[in-house]
């Protein structure tokens, strides 16, 4: 029989905030040792109270706006109870009854054309810590405890593993571009709900849930394996399908049922009285909207219209930082296509020599645009521009000062030349006297002195002309 695959996704994404969700500890990315980023609050000591990190709300709302969600104006937190050593309070603070975003939709491009995936809800929650097993003991590391997450829950709208991976890739570039999450290894984790039904049927089949997968490759493999298992069960009666939670084993490429004990818990959800309901008023929402980055598709279109090639667009959109740098230099008056080349070719090339990637680029838009403008205006040639760029990237020098200092200008502006001529003339009163007395050779000596002061910069003809004029008037 021919079957249709029905998949819904729950995706946990770690937010890029400077501090944890309910305390001022830094995120675990800052941690060097286990339990480096831990305070009495996130280690569950009595007497500490959670205090909401406003930035988390803003990033969750931004994600909701990018996924075309309705934004809840009244949102609350609930406690989810379970015992595990990596959960210091024995409850996780999450959102059950009033999630921050609902009813969204995202369009993905697949081989079969565009497909709309409906978003059921997005909610905010805290992450748990980590257990490290060693010998007879296990150790607990609370660095990741209370790191903010959003969970994005879709409707059962996926019909293939390909669609799931396309969707996840889209979320990834969206969130990177939006500064919501860097989506690094392990910062994006999925639970996959999967069932199959005969082609044309509108009823749902028996559903299984595969928990906690971090790599897209594993997700794809797990879906393919699980779909085949369901089909075999229905077609050949290999086993009886039951609604259950399973885990995917990377090594064998198979899914296994988890023990009931791990899955049939009653989490005893209830409202968290320590966190007041969050009210998102018009003013705040408008503020978040104003800062909202444009969606990936719109941004790509904008770059395409500016004449940037598709391959370059992908590189730019892979990082929020890089896309923003380009936008910033464009705002400072640079051409987008030219700017993209400076970033993707010149900057990337310089970093590559040092074994670094574009993600590690640290240059202010002001400095980069200053260099590009000097080249555009013909003050320096492109080779000199590159020389300045290297100095800026490696030593963070001021580009204009460095250019003058190194005498890289083709034309030094005349007021500066005049200043130097004036100084040289003041230093050589005898030469001027000689010149007045008809010794034209004296002018030659003054010219040499000026050239020396200017370190070779400046057009000699211009300098000569200015000097002669000044000598005549002296």
């Amino acid at each position, binding site marked *: 029989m021919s079957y249709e695959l029905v998949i819904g996704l729950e995706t946990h994404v770690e937010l890029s905030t400077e501090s944890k969700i309910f305390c001022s500890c830094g995120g675990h990315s800052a941690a060097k040792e286990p339990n480096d980023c831990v305070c*009495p609050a996130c*280690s*569950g*000591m*009595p*007497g*500490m*109270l*959670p*205090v*909401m990190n406003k930035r988390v709300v803003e990033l969750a709302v931004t994600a909701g706006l990018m996924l075309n969600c309705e934004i809840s104006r009244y949102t609350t937190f609930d*406690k989810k*109870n379970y*015992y595990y*050593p990596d959960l*210091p*309070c*024995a*409850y996780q603070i999450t959102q059950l009854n009033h999630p921050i975003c609902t009813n969204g939709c995202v369009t993905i491009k697949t081989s079969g054309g565009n497909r709309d995936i409906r978003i059921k809800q997005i909610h905010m929650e805290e992450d748990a810590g980590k257990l490290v097993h060693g010998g007879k003991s*296990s150790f*607990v590391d609370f660095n990741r405890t209370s790191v903010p997450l959003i969970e994005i829950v879709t409707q059962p709208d996926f019909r293939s593993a390909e669609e799931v991976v396309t969707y996840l890739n889209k979320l990834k570039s969206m969130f990177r571009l939006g500064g919501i999450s860097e989506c690094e290894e392990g910062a994006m984790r999925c639970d996959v709900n999967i069932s199959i039904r005969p082609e044309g049927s509108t009823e749902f089949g028996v559903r299984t849930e595969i928990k906690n997968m971090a790599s897209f490759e594993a997700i794809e493999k797990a879906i393919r394996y699980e779909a085949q298992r369901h089909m075999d069960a229905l077609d050949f009666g290999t086993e009886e399908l039951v609604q259950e939670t399973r885990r995917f084993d990377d090594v064998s490429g198979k899914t296994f049922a988890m023990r009931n004990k791990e899955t049939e818990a*009653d989490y*005893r*959800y*209830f*409202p*968290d*009285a*320590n*966190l*007041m309901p969050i009210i998102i008023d018009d003013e705040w929402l408008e503020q978040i909207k104003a800062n909202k980055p444009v969606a990936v598709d719109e941004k790509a279109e904008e770059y395409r219209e500016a004449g940037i090639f598709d391959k370059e667009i992908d590189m730019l959109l892979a990082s929020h930082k890089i896309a923003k740098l380009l936008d910033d230099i464009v705002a400072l008056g640079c051409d987008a296509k030219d700017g993209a080349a400076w970033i993707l070719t010149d900057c990337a090339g310089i970093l590559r020599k040092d074994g670094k990637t574009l993600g590690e680029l640290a240059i202010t838009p002001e400095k980069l645009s200053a260099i590009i403008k000097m080249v555009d205006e013909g003050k320096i040639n492109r080779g000199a521009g590159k020389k300045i760029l290297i100095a800026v990237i490696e030593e963070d020098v001021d580009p204009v000062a460095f250019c003058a200092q190194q005498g890289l200008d083709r034309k030094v502006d005349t007021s500066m030349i005049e200043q130097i001529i004036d100084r040289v003339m003041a230093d050589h009163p005898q030469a001027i006297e000689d010149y007045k007395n008809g010794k034209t050779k004296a002018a030659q000596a003054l010219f040499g002195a000026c050239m020396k002061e200017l370190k070779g910069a400046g057009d000699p003809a211009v300098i000569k002309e200015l000097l002669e004029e000044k000598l005549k008037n002296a």
Partner: protein
Amino acid sequence: MKYYAAELCDRGTVAVDDMVLVKDAPATAGSRILEGFTPLFSAEAVTRLEEKGYSVSGKTHVGEFGLDLVGEFSYYQPAEGELKGAAAELVASGAVQAALGVDMNGAPRRAAALSGVSFLKPTYGTVSRYGVISCAASGEQLGVYAATAAGISEIMGVIAGHDEKDGTSLRQKEYDYSIEKNINGKRVALVKELLALADDATRARVLAFADALKKQGVSVEEISLDWTDHANTAWQILMTAETCNNVSRYDGVKFGHRAAEYKNIDELYVNTRTEGFNFLTKSVILYGSDVLSKNRYKDCYDKSLRVRRVIAERFEKLMAEYDAILTPVCKNTSYQPYEIRQAFGKVFEESVFTAIPNLIGTPALSCGGVQLMGKQFSEGTLLSLAAGVEKEGN
């Protein structure tokens, strides 16, 4: 056994009960489960007192997690003889000027009545709960024991006000704790049903208090409230659920007591908690887990939240007519030791007098062996009424 003895001090010294953290002083909440736990920081109220030059002189025993009547079931100092609250007794003895206590289910109010001192449970959100060992977050408040209304007023002025470390702390910076409001012409309601629940001696106290008020020009009218039982049941459900959740962090993994014998993580949890909690706490944990469980949540916890809203509305309506409500604060004027297996029921029975302010976040003052309740932020009125009665007594 004396655990933390408060030193005998002059005026200017304040004791805190063991639900309140003082940096570097062991904190146990009266429970074995926290044996050996030393906090890294002080409660905000303690810090504010110290900044104003008060000396926080010591800690007093509490019943395990403040769940009992007045403090009789402390792991460190079990009750002997007539039941008394340690902080209230210390204030009554004159050894300290005042004491801080956490009112989650009326224990400090009862203790004050039994020792002949006063205790104010302030409006929810006016005093920071930062550094309070939390059990029932939605209704517990840090309050003040003192010998007189004036003594409470002084300390409240120091500890109240916004604290950004507590998400439930109200933004307001200043509150009215004056004791010299003109009370002539104020209207006080006396709750018939609650008066009927008390013994003769307690009833006599309440009526004497009413007479003293009348002499100050206050009118006292008897009223009937048919929802005090509902308020109590709702609060016991919310309180046990929240406590069950908040004490679940005491699992032997991170701090406090850890069982010596265990083979795996489940045994570590079970043995530690079996040894660490007393029978009353275990009852509260079971009751609280039950009301939060999937098939009971809607009928118990969720319904209690709705009852809370309705009662808040009814109380507000009532307070549009009256300036304060007068009730007994406990059934009897003295209590004898009893079996811990009876504690859950006994506390439930007694908290019918005290539950409303915990449930809806309004203030209550235990003074002269009785209780005055008022609307939010009416502490000044309650304290002034109490001061008026104190004057009559002199």
